[in-house]
């Protein structure tokens, strides 16, 4: 890394057939993972991926082929496959592909890395994971514990028949740890250190996840949750911390605003949306406190980039401003189909999948209330943090989410822990009950590497940043 793609590009140009437009997306990816579980080092893994994605547009048709055979013969075979499907798609095209705007700007992007992965030796990294394992073992009630540290780096280069050349290099840190506590038939898992999330950047990003400083607290809370009372069944105020806000934003704002869903592409798998095209510009999505941006410019957030995978330059845009729905999450193709402005969010998980509309970074803008003020404003409610269960209907409306940790709030003060906290609601009304938004003091950058969508299926990284938020009149409940 980085790779010199030029020999492959030259080979491709030598075999590419005459079509109105072609693009070649070249991707190289490498993920290294270290994991220690119950003091035992799991076999380290290094996963390398490299291939190209070829797209053709010609006389109203559009098709692709992807291959890991990066020699001239392999590229020629891939072109032949793409040509076959090009002819088929022309006969049955959903839309006229030649109406799609083509990328027109070249450029580059690279993740800012302060402390490179190699700055710590292998022994050093493994030693830290073993230290975390020891920190997690505070009691015999801890029955399973693990710590993981992973680095992913990828290079994505896009060249087109129009002479566009875009090169982007990404670097991610994927850390975390978890402790499982058990007594009898009651088991609780508590995680920390960035578990389930990730950041762009180098090892300096670990500190933002409290890695490894929160390890002991994670174990203590796992045990405390086993002994805690069940979350009550009630309607009350709900204070969501950023580690759960990310999921709330993701499922009930992000997915419903994906333009390809609204256009029906995902109805057989990921689903449709309760949002329709006529809602943009006027629909009240939430209270006046709700402002949500598509923001590819927060350096450490997972889906920051300069261009999407179709080559559209990425810019910050409001999707929802002061509660009013403004703009969908739709890339150039969807924008042309819907005749509506969107954002640069046409993305693919790897070289072997075509681009579709994805979330990228989707952030809830901070308000003016400190976390103490948020808590102080609640007479009776529940604080929840760290998602562990997520379920929502195919129109992205009726949801039910669960968290690792709940905490009772009474008379403006934090009280004891609650186990198995869940809540449910309806997207179309839930956001209108947004009663208070935290300020920059509680604003945290999260995200997930595991957003699934598309046919064939694709898993991509998305970023979500948010302050803590309070919602009124929410149905809250616990376990059996």
């Amino acid at each position: 890394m980085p790779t010199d793609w030029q020999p492959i590009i030259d080979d491709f140009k030598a075999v590419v057939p005459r079509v109105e437009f072609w693009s070649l997306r070249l991707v190289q990816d490498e993920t290294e993972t270290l994991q220690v579980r119950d003091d035992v080092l799991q076999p380290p893994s290094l996963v390398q991926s490299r291939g190209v994605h070829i797209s053709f547009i010609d006389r109203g048709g559009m098709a692709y082929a992807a291959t890991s055979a990066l020699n001239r013969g392999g590229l020629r075979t891939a072109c032949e496959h793409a040509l076959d499907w090009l002819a088929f798609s022309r006969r049955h095209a959903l839309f006229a592909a030649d109406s799609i705007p083509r990328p027109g700007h070249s450029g580059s992007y690279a993740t800012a890395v302060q402390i490179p992965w190699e700055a710590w030796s292998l022994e050093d990294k493994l030693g830290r994971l073993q230290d975390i394992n020891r920190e997690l073992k505070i009691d015999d009630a801890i029955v399973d514990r693990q710590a993981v540290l992973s680095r992913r780096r990828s290079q994505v280069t896009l060249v087109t028949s129009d002479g566009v050349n875009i090169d982007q290099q990404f670097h991610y840190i994927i850390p975390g740890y978890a402790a499982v506590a058990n007594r009898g038939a009651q088991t609780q898992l508590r995680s920390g250190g960035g578990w389930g999330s990730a950041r762009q950047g180098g090892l300096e990003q670990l500190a933002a996840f409290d890695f490894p400083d929160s390890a002991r607290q994670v174990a203590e809370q796992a045990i405390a949750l086993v002994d805690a009372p069940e979350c009550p069944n009630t309607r009350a105020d709900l204070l969501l911390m950023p580690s759960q806000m990310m999921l709330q934003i993701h499922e009930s704002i992000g997915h419903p605003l994906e333009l390809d869903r609204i256009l029906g592409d995902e109805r057989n798998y990921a689903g449709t949306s309760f949002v329709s095209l006529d809602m943009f510009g006027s629909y009240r999505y939430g209270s006046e406190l709700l402002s949500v941006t598509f923001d590819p410019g927060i350096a450490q957030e997972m889906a920051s980039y300069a261009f999407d995978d179709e080559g559209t330059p990425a810019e910050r845009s409001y999707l929802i401003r002061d509660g009013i729905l403004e703009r969908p999450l739709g890339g150039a193709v969807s924008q042309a189909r819907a005749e509506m402005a969107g954002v640069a969010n046409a993305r693919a998980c790897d070289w072997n999948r075509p681009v579709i509309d994805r979330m990228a970074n989707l952030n809830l803008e901070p308000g003016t209330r400190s976390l103490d003020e948020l808590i102080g404003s609640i007479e009776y409610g529940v604080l929840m943090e760290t998602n562990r269960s997520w379920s929502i209907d195919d129109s992205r409306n009726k949801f039910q989410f669960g968290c690792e940790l709940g905490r009772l709030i009474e008379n403006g003060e934090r009280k004891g822990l609650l186990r198995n906290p869940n809540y449910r609601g309806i997207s179309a009304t839930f956001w209108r009950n947004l009663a208070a938004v935290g300020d920059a003091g509680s604003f945290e950058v999260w995200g997930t590497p595991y957003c699934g969508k598309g046919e064939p299926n694709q898993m991509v990284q998305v970023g979500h940043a948010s302050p803590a938020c309070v919602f009124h009149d929410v149905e809250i409940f616990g376990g059996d």
Partner: protein
Amino acid sequence: MESYFRELSEKLCAGVAAGEVLLLNYQGEDSDFVRLNANKVRQAGHVRQQTLHLDLIDNGRETSASLPLSGQLDDDLARAQRLLGRLREQLPLLLEDPHLNYASEVHNSSYHGDNNLPAAGDALEQLITTARGLDLVGVWAGGDMSHGFANSLGQFNWHSACSFNLDWSIYREGDKAVKQNYAGFTWDSELLAQKIADARDTLELLGQKPRTLENGQYRVFLTPAALYELMGMVSWGGFGLKSHRTAQTPLLSMVREGATLHQNVTISEHHADGLTPRFTRAGFIKPDSVELIKAGAYRDCLANRRSAREYNAVVNCGIEQPQSLQIDGGELHQNDVFNALDTGLYISNLWYCNFSDRNHCRITGMTRFACLWVEKGKAVAPVKVMRFDESIYHILGDRLEGLTLEREHILDTGSYEWRSDASARLPGALVSEFTFTL
């Protein structure tokens, strides 16, 4: 590709030093993927991908890596050898692995499925023609998938098969749709035509004014497809030895408190009936079947190579999550389902399940597609989507009234990174009370 992998593996294993063991896994795919929306082509393409996974073992330590293959032997061999060199440098820096486990006995095998696939374009032409006038959305995924294993002890295994999975929905309006699937190894035009004709009939019913159900408990019939969604959740840690011993299984009450399912429920991981290779990535050969639940009581766990060493068990799977799940059929005939349901909800599909209380295997999720309200044995109207929240101890336990005699062979439609070769053979289930919450 078998001969290619054999030659590549022989050259790599020839370079193994004394005391070292090398495990090699090959995975390859040549697939067409065609997405449809409104019975037209949204995206069409082809994916060819091949990877080689290396596990290097020496002195009680193990490390691993994988790399993409180009299909050019010299190039692939050189890159694999370089990667092997990196692993060799890394091994002495690692701690001894007490759970290291790999097959030391040599069992060779080779399976080549016949290629009876139609040309993908021909199959899709037929689909589009048959579904003319319908709002059909879905995906064709088809082609060749292959797996290979070799090790420096002399073992060689190969498994390749050509299959297709055509998965689609036909929409009437809004979220009212019929979900269908046609997957397998040989194409039958008449079968496809019959499925589309069936869909047209059901679409008529979906035109009725939809019922809105109040929250509460209802009598329901879960089709095999709906049960498959629920079993996907139960399988998430429910049957693995590691999750069992660390008290993370959602079936913890069966382990710790003696809870049982209905005595008519027998669940197994039936490797012999599945589509996955019979060899694991460490060279173990899977048994024909592993009995997970027998007559409602917990029996055996799935033990992968590391758990087997840690807990002194026998390796009986590649991963501790069923890939060829089977539930025994019951006595309810498919043709009698509506009469047996009498009045209640016929649930064709469930969607987006997750745990609301893992310790009690309580699962939430949504109804989806053509779920129908049935009165006195007749389907009368579609139902607006509902959220359920119910424990598997009720669904397959004290509230289970019957399982269908006929079972459906479900081929998983998943295609994250690669096309899935998981499958299940499941009956439908009649449940006396099923809780809806939203």
